[in-house]
């Protein structure tokens, strides 16, 4: 069974924010919420790196572990989704997530948080596939249409990869072999003890 994953090739990301815009437009994400964000480190300095971040659809998702109403579930594709009908807006998942993926619309009065919103890997939610209710609550369901998340499909430099984890890992390996050096992404040096020499 294919496991859906995102992989951002930090050597290719040019911080154009097209993935962020594509996500917001495709899913009609409300103001104040970014399901995807581009993070830049060492901005304007040598060794600057940008990486596109969203929900990483963890295997053992901490958001699901802390949810008091257990509204998270993992699909057979390994996509972590949640039910907005069950969510009580407590905010525990927001604090548990290391990527800042679950966010809350700040549209109500003080103390009212509404329902948590997060990246759905463009695969909707627990409602009927491709129904208007599903779109209104969770956004588009591109996976059901035989497509992949729009953020990855829109990436102009092919930095953001999405799809079957094994296939995109193979694509990334081929890139690294061709370049002759590893990624400048976070954790690379910790894992492989290599200096970034471009």
């Amino acid at each position: 069974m294919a496991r859906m994953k995102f992989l951002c090739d930090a050597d290719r990301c040019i911080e154009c924010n097209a993935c962020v815009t594509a996500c917001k437009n495709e899913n009609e994400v409300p103001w104040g919420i970014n399901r995807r964000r581009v993070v830049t480190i060492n901005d304007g300095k040598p060794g600057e790196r940008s990486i596109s971040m969203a929900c990483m659809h963890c295997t053992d998702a901490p958001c699901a572990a802390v949810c008091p109403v257990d509204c998270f579930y993992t699909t057979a594709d390994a996509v972590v989704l949640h039910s907005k009908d069950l969510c009580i807006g407590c905010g525990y998942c927001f604090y548990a997530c290391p990527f800042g993926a679950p966010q809350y619309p700040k549209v109500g009065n003080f103390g009212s948080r509404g329902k948590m919103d997060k990246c759905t890997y463009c695969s909707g939610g627990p409602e009927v596939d491709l129904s208007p209710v599903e779109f209104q609550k969770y956004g588009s369901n591109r996976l059901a249409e035989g497509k992949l998340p729009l953020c990855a499909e829109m990436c102009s430099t092919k930095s953001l990869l999405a799809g079957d984890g094994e296939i995109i890992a193979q694509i990334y390996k081929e890139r690294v072999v061709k370049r002759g050096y590893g990624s400048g992404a976070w954790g690379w040096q910790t894992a492989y003890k290599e200096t970034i020499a471009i």
Partner: protein
Amino acid sequence: MITVTKDVTRETTMSKTTSEPAVNRRSFFKALGAGATLAATPAMITPAAAVDPGKEESKARYRESEHVKDFYRVNRY
């Protein structure tokens, strides 16, 4: 010339002692609370269950369509 007249009716009403009603406020709320407890009891004894989105909702939606194959192909460039 302005003459000030007393509101006799009001005075009479205020000074009148009200008779004890058939159901006073405290016994009414006591009965209401007991009723609510009885009504809530079946819901309380229902075993707690985690969300089960069902097989239909959590089924695999990904398929390696021509569109997806094209995405993989162009990403190998």
